[in-house]
């Protein structure tokens, strides 16, 4: 099975760099806010998974999630929330909006990779 394409949506350059290091076996697409993410999704029809930060400028994670779930082209793409939110309520809102899973920052590499493998059916 070919490596799955992952869209990283986060306003932190540090996190993008971290994901590049961590997910070398996956083709990655990068976006720094929700609006840019929608553009990247439209350009890349073969995105298999989205890693989504919650707090971002222009369009936050929850708004992007709702936009994706309301669009027939993107609604089946699994979304993993990558959040610093300590609030269970915030995480639950994301899950209610259709997120497939969540990982809290700071996370261990193996923890994130296990979630990605589970959702994409891929092995590193």
């Amino acid at each position, binding site marked *: 099975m070919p490596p799955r394409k992952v869209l990283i949506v986060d306003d932190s350059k540090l996190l993008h760099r971290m994901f590049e290091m961590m997910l070398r076996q996956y083709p990655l697409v990068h976006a720094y806010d929700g609006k840019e993410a929608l553009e990247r999704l439209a350009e890349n029809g073969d995105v298999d998974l989205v890693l989504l930060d919650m707090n971002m400028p222009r369009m936050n994670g929850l708004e992007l999630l709702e936009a994706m779930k309301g669009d027939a082209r993107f609604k089946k793409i699994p979304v993993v929330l990558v959040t610093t939110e300590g609030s269970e309520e915030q995480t639950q809102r994301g899950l209610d909006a259709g997120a497939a899973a969540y990982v809290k920052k*700071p996370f261990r590499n193996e923890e994130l990779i296990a979630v990605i493998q589970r959702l994409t059916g891929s092995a590193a």
Partner: protein
Amino acid sequence: MTVRVPKETEEQPQRRADALAELQSTLARAGELLLSLEQSARRSGPTPVNELQDRLNDVVQDRDELSRRLAEYEQQTGRLMNLYVATYQLHATLDPGEVQSTIAEIATNLLGAERFALLFWNADGTQCEIALGQGLSQDASGFYSAGKYGGGDPAVDATLTDGVLRMGPIDGSEAVAVVPLTVQGAVVGALVILKLFEHKAKLRPEDRELLDLLAAHAASALFAARVYHQTDRKLKTLESLIQLVKRG
């Protein structure tokens, strides 16, 4: 009571003697066979079944050991990756604002700091200013207000003086960690972590390396960016002046 004993024929004594000899011979052979089996058992050790069981146990032990080592290597790789990315990102820009953002991102995303303050001494060293803060409005200590650290936390005061990294719990201080920021041996400020996210109970041993890295690199990266920024601004001013002179 009368017991009738059959009359012994002439052949019977001979038959008994033959049977006795045969029995003695059989017993001798059984003894030899037993001895041989014992010697064989001593020479060949455990039976094949036991041997296989022992080997299987060894393989299971090896597998468990390899799994343990693999988990250790993965953790080690993760730690090194964090250190590499943090260093890379601190020195990836000469924009002071971006360097400060990177310090904040390291505190939040890699250390799990929910509340923190980035402090720098002002130019004349009389006041410690809050260059960047997160969650400080919820800090009840009153030490951090109006964009300044007024002093009073013993751990922060000590680190700002002696440049030693301190990790909580510290008597009389609410700080989880106080990281000195030094340039060429001089303490120019400190990163004070006041609270971690709820899902991160405490700093882990590997976080210490990241704090050390911040102590070593954050201030120098920020200092270099500020110097570049000032120099660049002066250069642009001079270029504008030269343009004006040329036009005049």
